[in-house]
């Protein structure tokens, strides 16, 4: 009897190692049982997540009733500024198009930064502290592919790690880690100085809740509270997505480059709508 128990335990352990090995291997797509289970779970979960959010949101809104007036005023100011900028933007983009035509850009080059934002609903959040993946209700049938960036209105929250026909899993940016096999580093720059600043977001420190930006050049004029955006140089993340703000800057490990701590702009609490950024460039590359 004891022997049988030991045998079962060893068998289970070997099975665990085998399955972990299988899941760690670099696989491009999920197997069909996984897809089926994920799809059906996401289908049921979306009936629960949204109503729960609506009810919770109702109570939050009652609490926020006081601050809404101030917020409105700020939004009005922003709308006015936006209307002014829109006019300049229209002129500049026309001009830009004309110049591109004159320089005879190829079609791919012209479409390069023409991102498409798909709106998706979060349907569930994992209850594992070291794997806080989220499921969203768009899948490969809607054009979502692995490695697409996912943002909220505030900023980047993660990338799509796996897709099924009708749902997708998002790995949050808080799992960013150089040593981890599942997440790539992000090339970033500073809003307003896109051509001068450069850095690489290499890891997330969960003890301080800050991202670590490394490989900043010595003569970089990056300063505290600058807005960090993706530079699009890595070809995984589209350019121009807000990530956060620089909080502190210090000399790096070898004294040759600087490192900075970046505070995330997006919050992971009570997420509802997120945007999946479709990158036309990536689509071309995969075809």
């Amino acid at each position: 009897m004891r022997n049988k128990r030991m045998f079962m335990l060893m068998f289970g352990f070997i099975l665990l190692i085998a399955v972990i090995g299988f899941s760690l291997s670099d696989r491009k797509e999920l197997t069909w049982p996984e897809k089926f289970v994920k799809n059906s779970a996401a289908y049921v979960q979306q009936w629960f997540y949204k109503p729960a959010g609506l009810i919770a949101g109702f109570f939050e809104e009652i609490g926020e009733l006081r601050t809404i007036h101030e917020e409105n005023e700020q939004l009005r100011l922003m709308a006015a500024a936006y209307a002014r900028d829109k006019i300049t933007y229209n002129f500049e983009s026309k001009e830009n198009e004309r110049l591109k035509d004159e320089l005879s850009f190829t079609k791919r080059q012209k479409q390069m930064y023409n991102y498409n934002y798909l709106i998706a609903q979060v349907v569930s959040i994992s209850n594992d502290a070291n794997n806080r993946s989220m499921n969203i209700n768009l899948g490969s049938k809607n054009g979502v592919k692995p490695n697409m960036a996912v943002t909220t209105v505030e900023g980047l929250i993660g990338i799509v790690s796996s897709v099924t026909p009708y749902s997708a899993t998002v790995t949050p940016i808080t799992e960013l880690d150089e040593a981890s096999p599942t997440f790539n580093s992000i090339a970033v720059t500073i809003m307003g100085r896109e051509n001068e600043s450069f850095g690489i977001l290499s890891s997330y420190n969960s003890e301080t809740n800050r991202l670590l930006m490394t490989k900043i050049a010595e003569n970089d004029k990056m300063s505290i509270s600058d807005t960090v955006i993706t530079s699009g140089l890595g070809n995984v993340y589209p350019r121009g997505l807000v990530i956060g703000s620089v909080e502190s800057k210090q000399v790096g490990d070898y004294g040759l480059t600087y490192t900075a701590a970046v505070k995330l702009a997006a919050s992971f609490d009570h997420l509802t709508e997120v945007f999946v950024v479709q990158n036309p460039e990536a689509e071309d590359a995969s075809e």
Partner: protein
Amino acid sequence: MSMNRIILLMLLLFIVEGAVMPWIIPGNFGDRIIPHFIFIIVIFSALYSGRHRALLLGASFGLLQDIVYFGHLLGLHAFLMGLIGYYTGVLFERRRATIMMAIAVIGFACLLYDSVLFFIYKVFRITNDAYAWALLDYILPSLFLQLAFALSIYVPVRKWFESQTMANQEKDEE
């Protein structure tokens, strides 16, 4: 309460855990208080319904969670839930646990579950945090939620599992 109904309720709980709990937990504690409701039911089944049932429930619901929230590794939750459920069942095979006993066992089981999960992730270099920090940051805060939940469902869940085992025994005698 038949086994089918128990499984149905557990499926519902699984959905609630992923889709409703994020809304109930207050804003700033989103990644500090993490529910493990299914695991608690598995431990209850080990205490009041026997080790084999706990092993089966733990392994199957663990696998469900592994697949639905696949991020890094497959099979971890299935293995841990099954194993911890089974050995709790072995420990409590011959005695009936009282309420204090059950809550204490669930507390220790949750600590063990979270700690082993943490160390496995550490081995595969998916997390770089120190264990002491993880303990204070999320393992202990979520333990309170786990205990509160276990306490609130103790009476009905014990009734389900005991009536279910009783019915089975009668069937065997016949």
